[in-house]
């Protein structure tokens, strides 16, 4: 066979070729056009692709087709009240990327996502390091503490922050009670509460990714570094940290993309004056009823996520030596 494709799932190739020749012999017995024989062979060689079919169908039907539909709508011309007609217009894109009002929304959203990503990584790394090095019951308890909150519905967790951060919430009551402040702090409905809420969403996942990465790094390499004369910090930096960079990139990507697109947290915990991209999308489509503009914004959000994905992929690959 001239061109052999190697699939990554276990499969006995020799079996297939034996079977193939048997089939061929069978088909040779009856007269057959060469193209039929050829197409049969192509099917036979690639029939493992059938395994991917269900997953492929789901992705195509529920992801690619809607994305393409969205892209098409974003070029249409709005005539108001949710009606639009086919056209090829870039109005929505230009407006969102140039109008200072919308540019400020983009900047605010990205700034928030970056802040969340940075805090999640900086605070998560030491915790993940501790959990990865822990063993036995200690580790199980730590992992449960990380995972159990995920079993609670997000909306419930967000309302939990109302109780903690509200004007008459837990923190304000405590601070007023001890006399540290005279007036309640306004923490809820600010970008502070949005960042807290986003951290609540992404932090467990960031931790789980970092833990699995740090667990995979052989502890004896750090000992080897110290044995060769590197101090405590230097050996951590030279070995563990450098080896964990691809994992940190993945965790960071995860935190950033999720924070960027998150709708529930900023809409419930944020102030109505500071909108994020996702809030603007929902607003345009559900309230203003300008579908093409909403679609344009959604597509811009999607593009930012894809761009970040590609960059992070680059970092992971460079790090994965």
């Amino acid at each position: 066979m001239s061109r052999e494709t190697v699939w990554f799932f276990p499969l006995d190739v020799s079996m297939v070729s034996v079977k193939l020749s048997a089939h061929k012999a069978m088909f040779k017995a009856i007269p057959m056009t060469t193209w039929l024989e050829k197409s049969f062979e192509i099917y036979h060689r690639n029939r493992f692709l059938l395994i991917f079919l269900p997953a492929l169908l789901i992705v195509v039907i529920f992801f690619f087709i809607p994305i393409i539909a969205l892209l098409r709508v974003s070029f249409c011309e709005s005539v108001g009240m949710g009606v639009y007609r086919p056209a090829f217009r870039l109005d929505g894109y230009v407006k969102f990327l140039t109008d200072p009002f919308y540019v400020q929304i983009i900047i605010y959203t990205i700034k928030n996502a970056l802040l969340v990503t940075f805090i999640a990584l900086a605070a998560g790394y030491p915790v993940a390091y501790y959990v990865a090095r822990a063993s036995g019951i200690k580790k199980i308890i730590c992992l449960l503490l990380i995972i159990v909150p995920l079993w609670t519905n997000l909306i419930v967790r967000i309302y939990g922050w109302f109780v903690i951060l509200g004007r008459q919430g837990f923190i304000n009551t405590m601070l007023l009670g001890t006399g540290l402040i005279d007036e309640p702090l306004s923490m809820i409905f600010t970008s502070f509460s949005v960042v807290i809420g986003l951290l609540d969403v992404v932090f467990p996942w960031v931790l789980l990714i970092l833990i699995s990465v740090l667990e995979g790094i052989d502890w004896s390499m750090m000992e080897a570094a110290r044995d060769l004369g590197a101090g405590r910090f230097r050996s951590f930096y030279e070995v563990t940290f450098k080896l964990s960079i691809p994992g940190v990139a993945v965790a960071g990507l995860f935190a950033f993309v999720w924070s960027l697109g998150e709708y529930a947290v900023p809409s419930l915990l944020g102030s109505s004056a500071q909108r994020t991209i996702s809030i603007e999308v929902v607003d345009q489509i559900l309230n203003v009823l300008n579908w093409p503009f909403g679609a344009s914004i959604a597509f811009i959000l999607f593009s930012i996520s894809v761009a970040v994905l590609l960059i992070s992929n680059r970092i992971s690959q460079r790090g994965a030596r």
Partner: protein
Amino acid sequence: MFDVELIRLTKRFGDVVAVDDISLEINQGEFFFLLGPSGCGKTTALRIIGGLENPTAGIVKIKGQDVTNKPPEARDTATVFQSWALFPHKTIFENLAFGLKMRKKSRQEINDKTYAYLELVNLTGFENRYPGQLSGGQKQRVALARALVVEPAVLLLDEPLSALDLKLRQQMRFEIRRIQKNIHITTIFVTHDQTEALTMADRIVIMNNGRIEQIGTPHDIYYHPKSKFTSDFIGETNFLTGSVTRLQADEIMVELSEGTRIKAAAARDVPPDGNVLIGIRPEHIVLRRQKPQSENNILQGRLMDVSFMGATRRFHIEFGKKIIAVDSGGAAEHSAQYCQGENIYLEIEPGNCLVFPA
């Protein structure tokens, strides 16, 4: 002055005593082995010397200097780890240069030494590869070179050959020994493989349950084991129980529980109750078809089976309720045809009967 000195070293992990009050002195340039079954504390002892573990009690001295409380980076030791622990994100050159860089050597010196030690382990030309691109044997040599390049006072090896296949292991034994003698570096090698220890060591310490069983040259340990444990662990030994019937200056008479009397030379520490174990190596027994007329010990048994082992043959002889293993390799023995169940005599020199307290 000794290069390495351990004084009453003890290490406990909770209730478990890993190293139990051991004292050792290792000379400059010596190839020293810590040998024992898994869990005997040999690796822990090595890690304490390297500073990777803190002892519960005791003192570690390197070149006469007390380093007990010094971290690994401040000790003049370098370790070859069991898993080799090469840095996968660094090239072979960077792996070797790491220790020199940490010691703040000049770029020129780092270059010179790295290439010199790559040559020593026959890996010239591999400097730009990554560990993932090397075979097991090559990785092993990189790990060795990475430890040697910093020119430590003491080289520590923690079962470095256990991940290699037999042929490669035999080759690396020879190679490590050659390099060790070449640069005359004090070396401590941890292993559970007695062949490794017997073939490479200048001196061996046998460890069991965190304690030292015996220290000596390979020859000493093999031919004059001081305890039943050592004699059982190094090589193979047939054990027969008996009680002393006569005690002389250089010889004792023992009545075996099977009824036969045998002589054993040079009795040590015969316990007051007179119950002893007689240890006999399989290769120290000579098989006879006719009862020999000799001053040596003669035991009578029945041949159970013979197995071919290449250079030698292994005979299993039924003696009372015991099975005695006999190794025989002579050409005459090889051509002789034995029948299963045939009566056979075992001739043993009294000097080859080891006596241990029962």
